[in-house]
C-alpha cells in the first residue's frame, strides 16, 4: 500500500514537471495593425466659356451656364432667345476633386422635350473640326477635363417656347472602367 502511494506521488510530480515545462516555454506574439484609409472619388462640374455662330452684328441670342453653390454635381445650361440653325457651344469642365484618378465612363443620350426639336452633343474641337467625345477620359486628382456642349435647333422648334434637356455624366474609379 505504501509503495502504491509512493508511485502515485511520483506520477503526480512527473505530471507537474511536464506541465511546468510547458508553461516555461518562451513565446512572443507579433501583431500587424492594419489601417486602410480609403480615397475619395469625387468630381465637380465647372462652367466654361460660351459662344455661338452668330456674327458680332447679330448677337441676339446667348448660351451660358453656371454651377449653383452647394450643387457642384449639376451644370445648368441656358440658351436664351434661341432660333434654328445657330450653333451654340458651351464649354464645361469635369474637375477631379477626389483623391484618386477617375475615368469619365459614360455620357448619356439627352432626354427631355428639346430632343424633339434639336440636338445636343458633347464633344470637342480637334484641329478646328467638331468631334464627338471619345470615352473613357481619365482625369487625375486636381485636373479638369474640358468638354464642349453643342446645342442646335432645327426648324421644328416653336417660337417663344421653352425646351429642356438633361444629360447624365458618369465617372468611376480609373481602374474599374471598362
Amino acid at each position, binding site marked *: 500500500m505504501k509503495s502504491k502511494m509512493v508511485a502515485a506521488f511520483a506520477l503526480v510530480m512527473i505530471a507537474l514537471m511536464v506541465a511546468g515545462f510547458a508553461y516555461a516555454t518562451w513565446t512572443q506574439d507579433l501583431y500587424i495593425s492594419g489601417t486602410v484609409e480609403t480615397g475619395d472619388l469625387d*468630381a465637380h462640374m465647372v462652367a466654361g466659356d460660351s459662344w455661338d455662330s452668330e456674327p458680332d452684328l*447679330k448677337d441676339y441670342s446667348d448660351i451660358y451656364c453656371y454651377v449653383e453653390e452647394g450643387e457642384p454635381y449639376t451644370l445648368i445650361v441656358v440658351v436664351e432667345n434661341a432660333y434654328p440653325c*445657330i450653333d451654340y457651344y458651351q464649354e464645361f469642365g469635369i474637375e477631379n476633386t477626389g483623391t*484618386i484618378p477617375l475615368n469619365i465612363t459614360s455620357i448619356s443620350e439627352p432626354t427631355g422635350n428639346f430632343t424633339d426639336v434639336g440636338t445636343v452633343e458633347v464633344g470637342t474641337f480637334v484641329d478646328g473640326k467638331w468631334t464627338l467625345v471619345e470615352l473613357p477620359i481619365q482625369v487625375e486628382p486636381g485636373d479638369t477635363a474640358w468638354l464642349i456642349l453643342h446645342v442646335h435647333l432645327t426648324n421644328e422648334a416653336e417660337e*417663344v417656347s*421653352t425646351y429642356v434637356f438633361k444629360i447624365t455624366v458618369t465617372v468611376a474609379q480609373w481602374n474599374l472602367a471598362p
Partner: protein
Amino acid sequence: MHRKYSAIPILLVFALTMIGLVYATWSQNLYINGTVNTGELDWEFVGASCLDTSGIDYHCRDGFAGPPPLFWMGDKDVGSTSVEITDVHTVTVTLSNVYPCYYTSVSVYAQNTGTIPLIIDKVIIDGHEFRKTTPPAIAQLDLDGDGDYDVEIWWKNALGTQLHPGDYSDEMSFWVHVLQGAPQGETLSFTIKIVAIQWNEYVPP
C-alpha cells in the same frame, strides 16, 4: 446528398462576394440640365399710305412701260384708293370706282417686333412668288377668272432687306394698274403676302 447541401453555403458566399464587388465599384453621376428658350420672329405693319386717296386720277401704260413718265395725272377725279392697317399683320387696300388704265401706288412700312433679325425674303402676289431678282416683279392677275387679266401689280422694292429687332423697314411699295379685262361693277380682291424669314435661313436668289 450531404455534399450537395454543403455546396450551397459556398455558392451563397461566392454570390454575395460578387454582389459586394458590384456595389463596391465607386462611381458618381454628374448632370447637365439644359433649358432652351426660343426667340420670336415677328414683324408688324406700322404705316401705310397710297396715291390718290382723293383727287385727280392717275394712269399708266400696260406693263408699267416707259418711257418716263411711267405714270401721269389725268384730268378727272373719279376713282380713288384707300389703305388701312386692319391688324398689325394685314394692310387692306381698296380701289373704288376704278376703271381700265387707272393707276395707283401703295406704300407700307413695317417694324421688326420680334427678337431675332429677319430678312424680307419674298412677296407672293395672289400666288405669284417673287424674290429679289433683276427682272421687275410684275404679276398680272385674272381676278374674276374669265381668262383675261384684270389688274397688274408691280412690287417695287425691299426684298432682301434685313431688319434687326426694333428696326423699321424702308418703304415697301407696289404699283397697281387696272387692265382692260377688268369687269364693270364688280368687287375684285387680291392678296399680297410679304414673307420674312430669320436672317440665317435666307438664301440669296
